[in-house]
């Protein structure tokens, strides 16, 4: 349950991929920057999602980051303004697809469990996938939080957020915990 709480908080992740159609390999657009690297590369894996991407619109990345910040700052209602009517969530041990109101209620409950939430970003990347007319914004960040009992914890996240027609439709969160400090003798 703790993990479920953490991931919704983070609000983001890219490349849900599970429901996407099998795509032909390496359909790079002729105008892509990849055109400068026309190397015949054979990959040992097929892929479910398109690998045809290009740098995304900065405004979409900005919208996702602002949405995330609103959540982190406790403004769940403000954050939800940028979500679509139906949202898919994938977090640790958790999957949900349903209406925005339900997601809002869940996010509100999870955020309320925290007394404070601090996020330190390593980087982010907006990638536009023309085959789906969708942008995935990926955020890499460290999250530190304190629950209402005063207990502190932290984790490293990579969240993928899918945006289509200006709305967030999917969040896919992955994470790793930091090593536990060695106990003092």
């Amino acid at each position, binding site marked *: 349950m703790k993990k479920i709480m953490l991931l919704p908080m983070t609000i983001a992740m890219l490349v849900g991929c599970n429901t996407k159609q099998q795509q032909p390999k390496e359909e790079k657009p002729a105008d892509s920057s990849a055109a*400068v690297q026309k190397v015949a590369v054979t990959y040992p894996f097929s892929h479910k999602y398109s690998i045809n991407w*290009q740098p995304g619109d900065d405004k979409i990345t900005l919208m996702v980051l602002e949405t995330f910040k609103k959540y982190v700052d406790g403004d769940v209602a403000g954050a939800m303004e940028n979500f679509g009517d139906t949202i898919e969530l*994938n977090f640790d041990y958790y*999957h949900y697809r349903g209406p925005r109101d339900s997601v809002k209620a869940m996010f509100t409950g999870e955020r309320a469990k925290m007394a404070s939430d601090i996020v330190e970003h390593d980087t982010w990347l907006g990638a536009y996938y023309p085959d789906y007319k969708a942008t995935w914004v990926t955020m890499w960040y460290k999250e530190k939080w304190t629950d209402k009992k005063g207990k502190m914890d932290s984790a490293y996240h990579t969240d993928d957020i899918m945006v289509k027609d200006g709305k967030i439709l999917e969040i896919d969160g992955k*994470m790793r915990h930091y090593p536990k400090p060695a106990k003092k003798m």
Partner: protein
Amino acid sequence: MKKLFLWLIMGLVLFMSSCQNQVKQPAANEAVADSTKPAVQSNIHYAYTIGHPADNWDRGNQENVAIVLNALKAFETGNVEESLKAFADSVRWSGDYFDAKISKDSLTAMFKDSWKNLASIKIDMSDFESVISKDKKDEYVGLWYKQKWTDKKGKTDSIYHMDDLKIMNGKIVELDEKTRHFPIPKKKM
């Protein structure tokens, strides 16, 4: 003569770089047209700060993808020695509750230990991205995939991965694994 040769090479590199930039420019315009909203490269104040430009990443070398995927495929098929060929002599490995810079010998031992109790591994790849930083100093390959495995007692399990692998001089120098578990199926009554 040597200097002249160097100048010629530099001129050629600059010319090629110029050509690449000309090729890249329409790609950005294409993205704008497809997404129906103009991309703004400046005067954007992001909600968070990072230690490099906000639009730091370009599409990277696809050969790096091949390096990484070949290593993963070799590991998947139990060929640890082949997989290790893609790694540098020293590797930083970050995973759940683990973060250390280790020698290749340690990496070898850990890879072999990973296989010790397993009968099979299956990778279902979702997506991969190769990126390079604007200053050309950092290259990463990101992988998104489902990993399923069966242990030697016949028990199966699975997890979803997002791995970032840093490439330097054609070798993997960092492996940063993030995961999420799938929901536990409800027990039948």
